[in-house]
């Protein structure tokens, strides 16, 4: 049978971290970048607007919410309830901020890409 025990499970866990597979879709990465960019003021509406401004991506508000939920589930962002304001009809907003893990993942992704780009220019210069 399989060696199902504590050590075995730990080993499996280690392997997956070592492989450093970051499950981050293109849209998720983009939204995560926006959260980082907006720093303390990231919430549904501001992210939607920023996406339009920076990346010319028009997303519906519900789609943004869905991505934010996924990011929070995966631990890339964390959230807290902010203050209420009149322009929101007196309702509070949920403010998102990037976690250390989120930031590290973004950097790793960037590094990976840079490395690959370096290799591309070396092998087949334009």
């Amino acid at each position, binding site marked *: 049978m399989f060696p199902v025990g504590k050590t075995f499970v730990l080993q499996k866990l280690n392997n997956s971290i070592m492989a450093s597979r970051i499950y981050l879709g293109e849209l998720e990465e983009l939204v995560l970048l926006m959260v980082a960019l907006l720093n303390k003021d990231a919430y549904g509406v501001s992210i939607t607007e920023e996406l339009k401004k920076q990346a010319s991506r028009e997303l519906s508000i*519900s789609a943004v919410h869905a991505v934010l939920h996924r990011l929070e589930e995966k631990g890339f962002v964390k959230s807290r*309830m902010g203050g209420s304001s009149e322009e929101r*009809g007196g309702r509070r907003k949920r403010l998102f901020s990037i976690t250390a893990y989120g930031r590290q993942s973004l950097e790793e992704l960037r590094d990976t890409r840079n490395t690959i780009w370096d290799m591309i220019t070396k092998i087949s210069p334009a």
Partner: protein
Amino acid sequence: MSTIPKPPAWIDSLIGRLAPTHLAEEIQGDLYELYRNDLAMKSIAMARFRYIWNGLGFLIRRFFWKRNSISHNNLTMLYNYFKMAQRSLLAYKSNTFINIIGLTIGIASALTILTFIRYELSFDSFHTNRDNIYRVVRVSGKDMSEFRTGISYPVPWAMRDEITSFKNITAMEYFGEALVEVPDAHGNIVTRYKEMNGLALVEPSFFQVFDFGDKPLKWLQGNPDKALIEPLSVVLTESLAKKYFGEGNIVGRTLRFEKEADCKVTGVISDLPPNTDFPFTMLIAYSTVKLIHKQAMDDWSSVDDNHYTYVELPDNMSKEEAEAEIAKVHARHTPKELHESRHYLLQRLADVHFEAQFGNYNGRTISKPMILAMALVALFLLLTSCINYVNLATAQSAMRAKEIGLRKVLGSNRGSLVSQLLTETFVVVLVASIVALALSEVLLWNLQSLLNLHLQQYNFMDPFILATLGIIIISVTLFAGLYPSVIVSRFNAVNSLKSKFATETVGGFSFRKVLVVVQFTATQVLVVSAFIIVSQMNFFQNRDMGFNQDAIVTFPIPDRDSVTRQTIEDRLRAQSFVSNVSFSYTLPSGVNRRNSARDIWREGSNNENIIYEYQAADSSYLNVFGIKLLAGRNLTPLDASRSILVTQRLAQHLGFATPVKAIGEEVKMSGDKVTIAGVINDFYNHSLKEDKGEVAIVQNPRAYGNYSVKLQTSQDRESLQQAMAKLEQIWKEAFPEHIYEYRFFDENVKAFYEQEEKYAQLFQLFAITFLLIGCLGLYGLIAFVVNRKSKEVAIRKVLGASIQNILVMFSKEYVQLIALSFILAVPAAYYTVNSWLNNFRNHVALSWWMFLLPGMLVLVIAVMVVILKSMKVVNANPVDKLKYE
């Protein structure tokens, strides 16, 4: 700021209601903020549209619907509900038991009736073209009051030649019983069978018109296209083929029918399903009809009611158009008098099983009102068992007040209490349903002959029944459980813990009274109806039909040879136990007797042909059957067929004011001149459901098809057995090559009411079931009342009340309720019973005591239940009840 137009509010409340609670606020906020931004940039309409669009966008997101933690919670609660239900059901065992028994009986009866109704409705409902298939029926008489099925023999042939617009025409004739002989390879008869039904003549087109839907008939042997073309070829069903020949290929073998016709087996088909009104087992080619009825083939007037024609119409043709086509053909071939008084109309195939006035080959119809009545009975049985549950549950609620109070104190809200109590009901209903399913299975298998049904599968394997049971479970749970749980959960926590619930008014007692009245109204309707149905059956059995039916045995004469007849008569008369013997063409009445009609006409009367029943009989016919001669003389062998006897009604119809005036008068009978020799009393030649008939009797020894032996009365069982053995011996010696049969005449007459007898039994059964459920509920109810009032009873006794006083106190209320329900039940019962009785020309006269007597019976039974149950408390020593306070 107040100038800002508001966004559509419904989106906001929709999100508020549907979104997970911790997300609603931010979503609503974001939507509102976007709306504000849009207002600044775009038109109001656009902003509103985008608001709605964005809001609805959330409904397609998966995160919006996720409720992880909560659904987990629900499951725990559900588990908890079941656990609590189990505990409280076990805590009140007797109550639970009564509830389960009551619901089981109700559900089992409903399932049984449902299966029965479904079976009846399934008759011939499976043919692919059933909506376009019609039976040609014969409606005649001036007032179109005679409904028959027989079609004259040339009609189907002419229809086929002259009407091109019909899709298909198929004629058939059903003989039913047959003497079948199986010869071996050398033509010697080896075995002989008497089949009581199944012999039919059918055309090859039968199989095109009736395809038996998704369970088509399979041709196991023979060629379906050619098998039924040649005259005297026969196709057998599988089971009959096995019975006659065993296994193997039997095409080409021969069967001899009625000692006359040698038929060649040309095919074997699978058995026809039981739920068809074509009970065929031996299918002979219809072309044989020309050999059987040689002269009738061109006779447009004479008919045989077992000769049917079915037509299949094209989709675009209406029934009326088709009837007009047939009428044209009929008019072309017949004189004016005939086609004006006789009409060939069409009856939908879907009605063949349900219209009793026409009948069918199965001899079995059930009217739609009867089906409706059965369905109502089933519904009310379910209802009355639900009422039991409601009554007991509300009565019981007082005892559970503390439990409910405590639950509320511990934080139960009303919704969860209702769910809790509904779960209890659900468990009870579920258990009852499972038991009921098993019970209905047992009931159905035992009631097969009573209900006249042929089960093809078990109920618990039938998806339809299981689905219905599922619906019954849900609806009974809601119906029986909702009211008590709402009532109980309404209790005020503080009051219930302070034990302020020992009063009678708790738990909607007046509503309970209403329910008891409803329940007993249904019961009384059934009991009264059953009582009157049974009275009608007794009426049928005991009414003087105008002839004597006791101690008469009848035998068929398979071989009409006058020498044999004389021998038999001499031998019979020599027996000491024989009082008289009569030879006749038919019998005065009874089922399956030969029955032929002719027309009679008297010169000088208003030129009307009177259709009457023709009977041929010898001189002792009147004596054997106790028919009285009112005037004139009996027939003698010398009369031959020149003189006749007529019944009083026929004499009157012919225009003779008194019987004496008819004597010696001449009339024309089927064109022959005859003299009226005597007038006899009227008798019922059909059942009591119809009027007395008009009958004429002639002497015609060649027509005699059976003989009736009147036995000496005052015989004990043993000598009767010897007599029967002797009679059998005489018959067998006279007809060695036939299969012995005999019938008691009175049983033959009783068989008229077979179907009614079954209904009578069925309704007695229903009445008993209703009474049982009702009394069960009453028993449970009174048990609670008595228990709660035990102290009151004790104090009353101490203060000097007698036992009678207290029993009256307990039963008074129920007597009132049942009396009220009786008053409500009488009109309903009267209406039902009256419309049933009106189906019969002769029926009991309804009178007040027929309602009162069964009503009193119900009352007495109910009061007995109340008294029996309260007796224990009433008889108890007051000291024991008052000791603890």
